[in-house]
């Protein structure tokens, strides 16, 4: 196929510039790219836009790859046979076709006068096609976003003194009242919270004497309050529950505090047997392990036979009765600890302090031995006055000789015969109570030396029982939390105990049946702090107490 291409450019003054190119090949490609045969610079042309070729005696044109497509005589087509006189458009270029028997003539006319685009309109429309025309610039947006963050999160907190947006997390519930008053704890910027800030409000005991000494000699260690009491951690961190914090020191406590009565504790599984505070013969308190069966005895000078008390069908004031543990051992109102045993509350119902069948309604008082003899004397004197000598027989024995002297104290030489009679009866009853019946049943007694005896006072004294409120002073057992468990599940030997010196506390093995330090199915996860309270809160001194209104006013500032 022979093809002649004529390119005519008509200038505004009417001059025509004409160039031509001849081709003799099967197909002629028109496009903007260099690989095309007819290369034109129109912006709407694709690199290879269309091709003209001969097939079956016909001259055809077909679109190759373009956006604006191919139009023949203004009709968009993909492929079309050309006839003489046809016009086809490729984008903004319009070609006239003349066919002869030998060749194809394509004429492209570009009339510069035909269209003089308005540059201003084009520029305006070009701008309309750009996203930037509708939005602020990225730089402006960046500035706005930065200023908003800076103003809201930096300037506002500093200017208004409200730093809640700087809080690294919620404070513990007990500190919510001072949540917005950051400087109450954070006194100095860029410095960690020191203990003095905590102690401004909290009066605390030391962790322990040993700990205090240890901290004093190990200044390099960070043992601030906040090291354990992690604030801004919700309610999880303020009260330390993680045993690892304790173990980090206590696993090697023996080595750290040589010479002190301390044991290493690396976990609950390897926790040493419980130690109880017992008093020795001279009353000194020492801690003895429950595994030390030789020394772990209840040295409290009081007599109690648990086996007898727990027998079924005991003889009670109202007939047969069976005592339960909680008949005597009762929980405090908050159910956290056991109340001390009191004679009046727990014993008197069965154990009468009566002393004479003729005075059935009279008892001596409990608690103050010096009131026993005066009470007895008064009661017998009263009986004498009411019934005369009929009611008050002669004492069966003469007044006892003073120990070691063989002589009787001449305490009655100034008394009337009636008074002497009452005195003799009172002394006899006193001796009976202290050495054989009521007092003797539970207490150790001692006869006062002569130098301490008075004619109107008791001759005997009771060894104070000194029953400890808690046996394990370094730990706290929450009886209330174990209320559903029967007492004898843990205090196993109680029902068999006949010796008052038996210490009926459970071994750590009993606790391990349910408690384990690590989380494990079937066990209660137990941390050190669950049993070991430390530096309990003390009563705030009077000087530190604040007026409520002033306190609230300070918080709301």
């Amino acid at each position, binding site marked *: 196929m022979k093809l002649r291409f004529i390119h005519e450019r008509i200038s505004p003054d009417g001059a025509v510039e004409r160039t031509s190119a001849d081709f003799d090949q099967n197909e002629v490609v028109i496009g903007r790219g260099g690989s095309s045969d007819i290369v034109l610079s129109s912006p709407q042309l694709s690199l290879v836009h269309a091709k003209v070729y001969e097939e079956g005696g016909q001259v055809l044109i077909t679109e190759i790859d373009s956006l604006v497509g191919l139009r023949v005589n203004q009709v*968009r087509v993909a492929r079309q046979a050309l006839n003489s006189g046809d016009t086809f458009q490729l984008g903004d270029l319009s070609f006239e076709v003349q066919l002869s028997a030998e060749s194809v003539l394509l004429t492209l006319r570009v009339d510069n006068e035909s269209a003089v685009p308005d540059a201003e309109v084009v520029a305006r429309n070009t701008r309309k096609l750009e996203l930037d025309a509708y939005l602020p610039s990225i730089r402006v947006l960046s500035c706005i976003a930065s200023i908003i963050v800076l103003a809201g999160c930096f300037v506002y907190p500093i200017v208004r003194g409200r730093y809640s947006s700087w809080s690294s997390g919620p404070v513990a519930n007990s500190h919510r009242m001072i949540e917005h008053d950051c400087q109450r704890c*954070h006194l100095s910027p860029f410095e960690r919270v020191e203990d003095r800030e905590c102690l401004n409000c909290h009066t605390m005991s030391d962790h322990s004497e040993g700990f205090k000494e240890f901290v004093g000699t190990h200044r390099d260690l960070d043992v601030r309050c906040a090291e354990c009491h992690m604030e801004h951690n919700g309610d999880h961190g303020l009260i330390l529950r993680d045993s690892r914090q304790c173990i980090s020191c206590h696993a090697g406590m023996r080595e750290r505090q040589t010479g002190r009565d301390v044991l290493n504790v690396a976990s609950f599984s390897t926790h040493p047997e419980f130690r109880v505070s017992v008093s020795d013969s001279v009353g000194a308190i020492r801690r003895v392990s429950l595994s030390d069966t030789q020394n772990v005895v209840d040295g409290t000078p009081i007599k109690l036979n648990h086996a007898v008390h727990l027998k079924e069908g005991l003889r009670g004031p109202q007939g047969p009765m069976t005592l339960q543990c909680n008949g005597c051992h009762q929980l405090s109102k908050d159910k956290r600890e056991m109340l001390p045993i009191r004679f009046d509350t727990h014993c008197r119902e069965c154990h009468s302090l009566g002393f004479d069948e003729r005075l059935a309604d009279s008892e001596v008082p409990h608690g103050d031995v010096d009131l026993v003899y005066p009470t007895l004397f008064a009661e017998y004197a009263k009986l004498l006055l009411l019934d005369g000598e009929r009611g008050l027989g002669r004492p069966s024995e003469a007044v006892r000789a003073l120990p070691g002297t063989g002589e009787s104290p001449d305490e009655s030489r100034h008394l009337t015969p009636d008074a002497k009679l009452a005195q003799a009866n009172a002394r006899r009853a006193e001796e009976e109570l202290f050495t054989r019946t009521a007092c003797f049943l539970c207490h150790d007694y001692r006869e006062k030396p002569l130098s301490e005896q008075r004619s109107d006072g008791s001759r005997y004294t009771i060894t104070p029982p000194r029953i400890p409120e808690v046996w394990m002073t370094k730990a706290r057992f929450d009886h209330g939390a174990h209320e559903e468990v029967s007492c004898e599940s843990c205090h196993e030997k109680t029902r068999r105990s006949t010796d008052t010196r038996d210490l009926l506390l459970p071994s750590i093995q009993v606790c391990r049946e349910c408690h384990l330090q690590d989380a494990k199915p079937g066990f209660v996860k137990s941390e050190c702090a669950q049993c070991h309270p430390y530096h309990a809160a003390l009563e705030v001194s009077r000087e530190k107490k604040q007026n409520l209104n002033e306190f609230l006013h300070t918080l709301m500032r």
Partner: protein
Amino acid sequence: MRQETFISYHGYRWLILTVLAVVMCSAVYLIDDPIGGRNGGTIVGYTFGTLATIGVVWLMSYGVRKRAYYSSLGSVQGWLSAHVWIGTGLLVLVPLHAGFSFGWNVHTLTFLLMVVTIVSGIWGVFNYATLASRIESHRGGGKSTQILEHLQTLSSDVKALCKDKSEAFVSVAQRLNPPFTVNLMMLLRKAPIAHIDQRVAGAALATLPDSEHDEALRLFGILDQRCDLINGLLEEARVKALLRIWLFIHVPASVALCVALAIHILSVFFFW
């Protein structure tokens, strides 16, 4: 063979490195069981926070590197690949740093700004992956200004064609002439102008005298061409807008992130 892109740069080198780093950090996070619980204030928390801060600063430096045309500090494509993958990795690293604790404070705001930055960046990557190739094929060559000039030429042709024609002809030309109007929604939403179909053209021809039918067919051809050009322009403008609009979120959010990050670090140590 598939062409290597910034996504698959050097056999997904930065993707692999990022995944390894994230897996390693996650393992450390899971193994670490600090007293008081996991949070930004533990040793691991501080370490992750430091790594994330270095990451953010480095990611921001991509803006400098891509403008440093004469820099020999790695290829821009490599930097972009690392920028994309390391940035995505921060979506995991920062929550690990914070121990997944969030609240109404500047610290969580910093994290949110980072999420907005990264998600908008992922949107941009997605747009490039799906749309970038369409610019060249849709353009048919040339710049939009030249196409707009041709549109004006076609408008002139329509006006010339209407000269000395009946009022009905002019009315048809005005009614069927596709309008060239653009707004923000048109740039973001695909809504091509409909071509003049046979039914409309037939109805229009019926209103014209027979003597103007040939000219009317020419008019339809010109209007059809205008329609093609406008649709091409709008489609290209839409693609270009989608390839750029994410930057209107990505860059401001990243700058604000830097400001928030600085306040975050300052506030943490101010109230130590």
